[in-house]
């Protein structure tokens, strides 16, 4: 499989703070990769740069073979994003929100696509309800539905299963795997849920102080550190660094 994303010495500096320090990595098409790290590690800054919301101080981002920093509008329609920390308009209904975003992404058959994603995310009964009347778990499902409205080839997720009950979490996890398998989509997500990462991801990028300090498959990291779960690896790496 080809790399759909390549970063080269990607750097972001906010005044005297070096938030992301010369980050170079690649994502294979069809892979699911987790971006892990403690608070302030640079995960959100990295995601923001990959979404075009934040201008890097230096470095390169190549997405779908194009220079993303210069030509981001050529590829933004092939990507999408969901985060519990970015809201959808609260006064609009779920259907209205999905309609607006389907049109923004130039989806061909808006009605049919909304039917499909609402069925996939069990939102049929919520379609005509205003977003502000939804529970936080329902909002997360709506946000995920919005992120798949254009059937993206590259999906970026920030805490995709935050606020979801265990049953829905398992269901979302299976859905994302199935989506990747069906459409050969590439998924990059930031999470603090190590169990989710272990069950869902092919690759892990562990960040600390703006740098990738570990990378590999969950199994490789477990073997390397001689641990049973990723949480132990995460703590191990954090303590090693501090020592």
């Amino acid at each position, binding site marked *: 499989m080809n790399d759909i994303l390549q970063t080269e010495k990607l750097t972001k500096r906010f005044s005297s703070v070096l938030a992301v320090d010369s980050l170079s990595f690649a994502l294979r098409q069809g892979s699911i990769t987790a971006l892990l790290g403690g608070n302030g590690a640079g995960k959100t800054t990295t995601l*923001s740069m990959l979404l075009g919301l934040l201008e890097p101080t230096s470095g390169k981002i190549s997405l779908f073979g194009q220079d993303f920093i210069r030509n981001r509008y050529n590829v*933004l329609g092939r990507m999408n994003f969901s985060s519990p920390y*970015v*809201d959808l308009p609260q*006064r609009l209904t779920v259907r209205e929100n999905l309609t607006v975003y389907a*049109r*923004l992404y130039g989806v061909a058959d808006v009605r049919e696509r909304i039917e499909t994603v609402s069925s996939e995310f069990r939102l049929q009964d919520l379609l005509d309800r205003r977003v502000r009347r939804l529970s936080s778990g329902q909002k997360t499902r709506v946000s995920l539905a919005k992120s798949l409205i254009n059937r993206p080839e590259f999906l970026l997720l920030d805490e995709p299963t935050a606020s979801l009950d265990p049953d829905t979490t398992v269901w979302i996890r299976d859905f994302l795997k199935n989506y990747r398998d069906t459409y050969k989509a590439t998924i990059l997500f930031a999470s603090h849920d190590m169990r989710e990462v272990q069950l869902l991801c092919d690759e892990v990028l562990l960040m600390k102080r703006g740098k990738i300090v570990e990378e590999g498959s969950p199994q490789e990291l477990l073997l390397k550190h001689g641990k049973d779960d990723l949480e132990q690896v995460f703590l191990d790496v954090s303590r090693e660094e501090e020592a």
Partner: protein
Amino acid sequence: MQKGSSVGRITALVLRYLYLLRSSWPRIIEIAYWPTMQMIIWGFVSQHFSRSSPELTAGGILISVVLVWDCLFRSHISYTLSFLEELWSRNLGNLFVSPLRPREMIMALASISMMRTLIGMIPAAILAIPFFDVSVFQMGLPLLGFFLNLVLTGWAISQFVTGILIRYGLGAESLTWVLPFLIAPFSCIYYPLSTLPDWMQSIAVFIPTTYVFEGMRALLLGGSFEPELMLKGFALNSVYLIFGLISFFVSFQAARRHGLLLQSGE
């Protein structure tokens, strides 16, 4: 699957604001409520003055200028409030990870602003006919020029304000309400330019709205349309619109540099 066009994205965003408008009857009523109240209050003031100083109210000038001035305020408020909705709902991040360009957002905001201004002003202008026997429509085609000039001034201010909002967040929200009134004393809405002291006149000649109201007075009181006043207004508006656009794009780039688009609303 996705082959969006610029028009499609602008329409999508306009649809978002129309959904918002449709979601609340009080909002729709409010759009027409304030211009109508202004018209009624100034209508009675005008009637009162017409007995003692008929020259002040000849040709329905007082009600006409109040209505036309409100076009500026409404166009600015409609534009900026729609943008503020994105900050209040913390939705800017979602919008700008989509293929929506900032210039398309500007087009969408201008479109919804024009719709809301017309929804607000037309009922007030129509009601002024039976209430006070004043019809701004009697001005004919020049009314369209006066209206467009004021709407353009409103948008120029809005672009400057939204640039500040995108850069500094909701802390700068009060500018939305304050800024249009900064130019009001210089705009010569209720009095001719010659009323102002010299130092204020030297500022007023750089304000496009001054030429709109001077032109309206020439038309309603003198019966003559003076195209050079209209053209001066449009020329100045073009300059301020370009300045407003530059200011917005500079602020947008600064927001991208400082990572403010995801944090907006906080």
